[in-house]
């Protein structure tokens, strides 16, 4: 488990390097990635479904990214991208393709649905948090404008 946490840390860190996140901010993205992945593992440990795990994991990732973005005054994307990559259903996507190539269409469609739902759950998690943050910031600027006028 410790080895895996280390692996996920370096996975997120290296994704940050590939997207050329500034050096000083790489560490934060990696920590966000580990947090999201641990959330997914915790849900799987509680016998939750992997789709719910992806959704909650992505909620945690997005929340951490937005909080870090506010605190450090940097775009949330640079924490969000390294953060959600460990949740991506890479193996499921590959198995979909493999089943389709072998002509096992039934198995392929089952895997495809699993991949789409996991990906959709990740997207929904980011969507929910970003919507809340967006609404809050719109309300805040409106208040500031009213105070000024």
């Amino acid at each position, binding site marked *: 488990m410790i080895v895996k946490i280390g*692996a996920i840390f370096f996975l997120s860190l290296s994704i940050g390097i*590939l997207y050329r996140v*500034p050096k000083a901010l790489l560490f934060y993205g990696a920590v966000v990635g580990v947090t999201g992945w641990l959330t997914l593992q915790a849900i799987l440990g509680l016998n939750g479904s992997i789709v719910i795990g992806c959704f909650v994991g992505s909620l945690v990732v997005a929340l951490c990214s937005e909080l870090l973005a506010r605190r450090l005054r940097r775009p949330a*994307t640079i924490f969000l991208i390294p953060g959600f990559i460990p949740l991506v259903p890479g193996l499921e996507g590959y198995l979909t393709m493999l089943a389709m190539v072998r002509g096992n269409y039934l198995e392929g469609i089952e895997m495809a649905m699993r991949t789409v739902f996991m990906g959709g759950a990740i997207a929904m998690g980011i969507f929910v948090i970003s919507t809340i943050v*967006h609404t809050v910031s719109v309300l805040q600027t409106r208040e500031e404008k009213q105070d000024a006028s």
Partner: protein
Amino acid sequence: MEPKLREIMSITLLAGEVLLRNGAETYRVEETMEHVGLACGAQRVEAFVIPTGIIVTISTEHGEATLCTRVKERTINLSRVVKVNELSRRLSDRRLAPEQARHLLERVARGRTEFNLGVLIVASGVVGASYAVSQNATFWEITPAFLAAMFIRYIAHLVSHFRMVRFLFEFLGAASAALIGIAAHQVMPEINRDIVIVAALMPLVPGVAITNSIRDVIAGDLLAGISRALEGILTASAIAMGVGLILTIWRG
């Protein structure tokens, strides 16, 4: 165009172009251009940005002008996005004069990144290897995954001159990952081919396209959101086709 207006226009467009070229969200490009333009002394700035171009109208007390720029090539360099973001913040707080901002922007646009090719290749390898570790791979599976992921990054460097051929890099990268996976399995039959291939494909995941499309849709830029989502879907398809082609030939 009156000189003052021309000055504001060029700084604003430059800021927008640098952001859009390096993988910023569309709404961020629009907002930043607005902030930069107003900080430089414009009365009104209207920016319309889609992933492939910018249209901006700026008005000052002396008149107004509209310019349009096409952005054909895009890469991903988030450190430039961060730098322009910081710069626009400083401009808005009046901690930076417009003349200095222009100079700094040009430096950001041309500046080398802090990571050179060697670091990027190793980072790509680490992505592959660490994904393999998280999937319970053995040492003999982690090593080919590391090498294959490193090789994928090197291919990206080789085909970077052919940017006009879209998704060539993803296709070739996926195909070579599949070849390396099959080769590793042939050399040592106890190696699980699938783990090696999946791990090597991890650096190809279109992370920026996915996040930007979600964030653009939320910000109300539906057009930009859809085109980014399409980019992500096409990238995934190119990867699937690259692997699928090799595995079909191999009768996997």
